[in-house]
């Protein structure tokens, strides 16, 4: 659906997208990665399990929610990729937060 135009001297970092290691451009959003990797969809809805993908890219529609470093409901369009980041497609409301059992 999308591609990244070639650019001179871009720094890259390593991330893990749905279990797959990837080298991506530094300084871009998780949503830009998901779209240029042609992920198809980035979450399913909690109400009807229908597939959704980024829609507004400016942080207002909340349709690009993904699981980032184990935390659900993160806006992929407003989160910049970081070295070693784990990004996963979110199913419904996503997993509960890690390490909060007390």
């Amino acid at each position: 659906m999308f591609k990244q135009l070639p650019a001179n001297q871009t720094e890259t970092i390593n991330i893990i997208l749905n279990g797959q290691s990837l080298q991506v451009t530094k300084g871009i959003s998780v949503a830009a990665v998901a779209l240029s990797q042609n992920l198809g969809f980035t979450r399913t809805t909690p109400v009807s399990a229908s597939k959704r993908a980024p829609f507004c890219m400016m942080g207002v529609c909340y349709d690009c929610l993904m699981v980032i470093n184990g935390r659900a409901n993160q806006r992929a369009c407003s989160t910049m990729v970081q070295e070693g980041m784990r990004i996963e497609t979110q199913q419904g409301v996503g997993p509960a937060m890690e390490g909060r059992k007390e």
Partner: protein
Amino acid sequence: MNNHYQLVIIGGGPAGLAAAATASAQGISCALLDEQPEPGGQIYRSIESVPDQRAQKLGSEYLRGKKLAAAFRECDAEYYPETRVWSLNKELEIGIIRNDEASMITADQIIIANGAMERPVPFPGWTKPGVMQAGAGQILFKTAGVVPDNGVVLAGSGPLLLLLAWQYLHAGVEVKALLDVTPLSNHLSAMPKFPRAILAHHYLTKGIGYQIELKRAGIPMLFGVSDLRAEGDEQLQTVCFKHSGKQKTIESELLLTHFGVIPHTWLSQAAGCKHKWDNSQQCWRPEHDEWGNTNIPGIMVAGDGAGINGGRSAEHAGRLAGFESLFALGLLTQEERDKLAAKDIKWKRDERHIRPFLEAYFQIPKSLLATTDNDTVICRCEEVTAGQIREAVQHGHDNSNQVKFFTRCGMGPCQGRQCSNAVAHIVADESGEAVADMGHFRGRPPVSPLTLGQLAALDKEESV
């Protein structure tokens, strides 16, 4: 970060940047908070880091942002990027989240400059992956050099659609078609506003220039399009529409739509600023005077968040709010303020010349604003359909907030940002009342999500 500033500016677009540079020149303590990692707002996204080659393709208007960002970098205002505001109240307390931690700061003066968002217009299939807003396409291009791979259909109404088509053309992207849903009758109804628009002829010639270039490049431009639908199993496959009385289809995996922009009012609403329905701009906007003062002492609005007037006007509005805050802080006399602001007042008025014409020409028809297709999802979060909203009205729920309580429409993560306007239009249509009387969803903090843990940690800090 201090816990008190004389001036806090929320938003790092043209209005916020201009306000910060203006006000901080007088040596006040001033902080600018912005969600983005770089200054520029949506219009000048990534203006500091964009590679030259990409910047050229985005056009001269985009490059204007460079000067603005540079002036801001030189000024004394403290800059807090990647900072979200989740609360604002009449006591001028601001709830923020930065580095994943919540905190509260206070200010003597606050300028809300949080800009505009795309007008969400629900149509059949608009929730499918492959359907996005035109602004999203532009942000992907500006911030990441990411463009459509396999062709794109652009549909909707408004200048941004033409600009994006032109930018894609220069980036070598295949634009399969530009479907203009502006009703042909608008051409006539906008004519009385045309003479004033001639005063801002550079905007008109630019628009015509884009059209000529697109036509020469062989991009199909269809006018008077209606009945837009996005079809496909789980993903967009086909764009369906009506043109010159015929049903037509275009195979495409990507459709970018644009129906104009509206002020992003969630923060000004949560703060309790008075808002009014603007019939010409077809949206709610905060009430304010020429300087940006709202009904709440100390809270000002500037830029497209105060009403849509474009990026250049936002710059002037930002400076006016900057001067006004200095006057309010007692650093300028009224006379000094008026003298310093004279040029911006004039330029801001000049920028307004084109607007009545654009607003009339690109007026979105009721058939799109209040869809009669009962199966169309209106609330993307809670998946409430137009049919369910109309049914709620038939049961006697006759304003936006009652429909919200009854259907959960607007209660999802986006807090109604995507459905508020559509609900108001559908309720008005079903009940035969005016949209202005339908009210907007009541905005309450937190206007941006935060975890209970973040809230609890806030309390601990205060009790120490």
